[in-house]
């Protein structure tokens, strides 16, 4: 069908962040994740917030687009905020009947909110928005490659990931086609109770499964015909390579980590 299916949320571009090695971005994202989860002091969180703001600018993406990635976890954020807001000890700053808000609770609730927001923003800017899914798969393969010695099937897992990425649009197209065909035979997927709808999906899923098995079989034959015999002796057209930019970025990240851990010690009051 003519429509483009956008995989993940990747936004094409040529910014500093787009051109970084995916491995750098993956490790950095994990580092920022650990930092934001492990730091509780206001000064550390401010440093992290500044870094995330810097990443936003470096990605050259529209701010609205970046902020939209928070939307799926809105409910979680609200829950975490409220849960912390009404607990804790210390001075009462607001009370109305049963509702009591104490200073301690308010501060913690705000910090939790900031931590979670920073966590989501840093991973979406570094990974989902600026890295193609296939590069993420490559990065995982490369980072896990030491495990090959332990007979961990690193190559196979990465091949599976990239084949999955390749076939998602094809299967979505096919699902649409099957839905249209069954609708033409009178199937109705929009009305009726849950049981009826669930049964309706059998008429989509069975053909989809059968065709997926056939595709898998065909694909395996096609891969063998093109001399595939696993990862051994295989070279790659696109090799991910570290550049000077990665070094620069890594230095920034180390600095961030030092700042996040050192500042609370230097300024214990904050």
């Amino acid at each position: 069908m003519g429509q483009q299916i956008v995989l993940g949320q990747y936004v094409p571009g040529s910014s500093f962040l787009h051109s970084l090695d995916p491995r750098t971005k993956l490790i950095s994202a994990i580092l920022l994740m650990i930092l934001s989860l492990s730091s509780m002091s206001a000064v550390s969180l401010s440093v992290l917030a500044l870094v995330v703001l810097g990443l936003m600018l470096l990605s050259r993406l529209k701010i609205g687009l970046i902020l939209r990635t928070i939307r799926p976890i809105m409910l979680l954020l609200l829950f975490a905020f409220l849960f912390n807001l009404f607990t804790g000890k210390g001075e009462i700053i607001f009370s109305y009947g049963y509702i009591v808000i104490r200073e301690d609770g308010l501060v913690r609730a705000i910090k939790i909110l900031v931590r979670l927001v920073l966590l989501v923003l840093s991973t979406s800017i570094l990974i989902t928005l600026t890295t193609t899914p296939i590069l993420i798969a490559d990065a995982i393969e490369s980072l896990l490659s030491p495990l090959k010695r332990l007979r961990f099937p690193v190559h196979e897992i990465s091949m599976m990931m990239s084949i999955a990425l390749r076939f998602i649009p094809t299967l979505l197209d096919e699902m649409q086609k099957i839905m249209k065909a069954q609708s033409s035979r009178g199937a109705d997927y929009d009305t009726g109770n849950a049981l009826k709808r669930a049964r309706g999906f059998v008429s989509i899923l069975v053909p989809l499964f059968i065709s997926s098995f056939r595709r898998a079989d065909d694909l395996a034959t096609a891969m063998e015909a093109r001399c595939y015999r696993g990862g051994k002796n295989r070279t790659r057209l696109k090799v991910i390579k570290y550049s000077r930019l990665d070094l620069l970025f890594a230095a920034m990240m180390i600095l961030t980590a030092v700042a996040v851990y050192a500042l609370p010690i230097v300024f214990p009051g904050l």
Partner: protein
Amino acid sequence: MEARFECEIDKIETGVLLQDISFTYDLGLPQETKALSNINLEVRAGQHVAVLGHNGSGKSTLAHLINALLLPQEGNIVIFGREPSDDEAIWEIRCRSGMVFQNPDNQIIGTTLEEDVAFGPENLGLPQSELRQRVDFALEQVGLTELAQRPPHTLSGGQKQKLAIAGILAMEPSCLILDEATAMLDPASRNDFMDLVLRLRAERELTVINITHNMEEVLLADYIYVVHNGKIALHGTASDIFDQAELIRSMGLDVPVHIEIAGEIARLTGQPLQAAEAFSLVDAIQAVNCRLSDPPQARSGLTKNREAGQTFSPSTHDEFPERKTLVRVRGLSYTYNPDLEQSVKALSDLSLDIYEGEFLGIAGHSGSGKSTFIQHLNGLIRPEPGVVEVMGLDVSVKKNIRKVREHLGLLFQYPEQQLFEETVAADIAFGPKQMGLSPAEIELRVREAAELTGLEPALLDRSPFDLSGGQMRRVAIAGILAMKPDILVLDEPTAGLDPAGRDELLNYIQRLQEKGQTIVMISHDMDQLAGLCDRILVLKDGVKYLLGTPAEVFETEEAIVSAGLAMPRTKIFLEQLSKIDPSIRTDIFTPKEAARELYCHYQAGGEA
């Protein structure tokens, strides 16, 4: 770079040699099936060989053997000097021969075109600079350089098959095996694809083995093997093979139209065709002309057929206005992704009536809007702007949709892929069940629909997935017929079937129409449309380009070609003949009728 390519192609006389090869699937198990027995086949390096056979004849197994994807249980096989004896030899054989498979989607591995082309060479362990060179070269050869970074699912079927060729070229093979590579392509893409294969064969000195049931492709080959029930039934050059037209037909295969007409005339005049006499279109015309202008004296009794000849007169418009209009389409336009930059106008200002009992054909190049149009007919796509009414019901009104779909049964391409129930009967019953009919009524309708599509009662309790491709397709059609639609809409019902399966299915469709069923059918086969339909709608870039009887639509070749279509082959033959004798009628669309008409025409002329 050129020199490097050449030195890798060793000059070995024999490319592929199969001696007494037999192959059985699931050998030793209860369900074992013999696919090939005692096959002897030889392909010289650089030769273009076609392997012809109906579905299930074993020709695909043969292709898999030649690429060492299967190993024979009996006999010797040598492929470019190598026997598939151990893993290393098997790997080398696969490196030397590339294979294009039938389904364009199921052989693409990469997430971009470039990555997919690189897959083979990557497996050869080539250094990165060489990979880059080979990928760029291969994409350029097939004309896909500009799309190198695109994801493959955005390509058309024809482009996907070209991508498959590029993936093989990048491995620099000696041999190209096409395993029904064009079966899922429309005629224009098919010609385009075969042109590419022929060009590459000449430039790269490739050996080509084309496994197919398409007659036109077979005529391109130097040598032909016909496989029937797991054995080589015939082999020889094209003219050797088509001397045996009757035998070919009895094996469920097609004979090129011009050979069929010439053969029929030869039969009527009692002057048999000589070897190679009707091989090309020009030869065939010569042969026919020669027989008709110089007939033997003995031709008793056949004169009466003149009467029969006259019944082939084309139906005229006049009979339609009195008929009841079942579907009314007015001012229909449709644009895909209207908000985006890459919006595509699929239909513009289309108006049309479909009458009770008629057989309406729809033709058009790929992307001409055929599929979009028929999806409007049962409300899968809402008309905006425009009006579509089925049996007086406006399809844009949501509460009408259910009724509309009961009145108008729509069957998509490859409908067997939508079967899902445990038994054939249950699958056919799906539609009637959704209509809320009583169990007794459903049972009755299932039996009727099965009978109409020639499915034996014994099949009804079997799983649909145990049936042959042609049978599965008839189950899918029965599933629509069981809803007793007033209008039956079929999107390329014969796509991917072999000639025998195709003819059988068309027979059932024709019988339905004789019983008064209104039918709308999309097809890429102009001979099919011209031979079956009362009227044909030709779409071009979403616009109603031509609409009329086959005789009217195929009046001028210029218009048909500009719509991206081909003339019916029978018509082409008659046009050529009419250059010699202008009084010959050219508005006949089936070979048998054409031969009879020609014969009668001569008889009338001879006696005057």
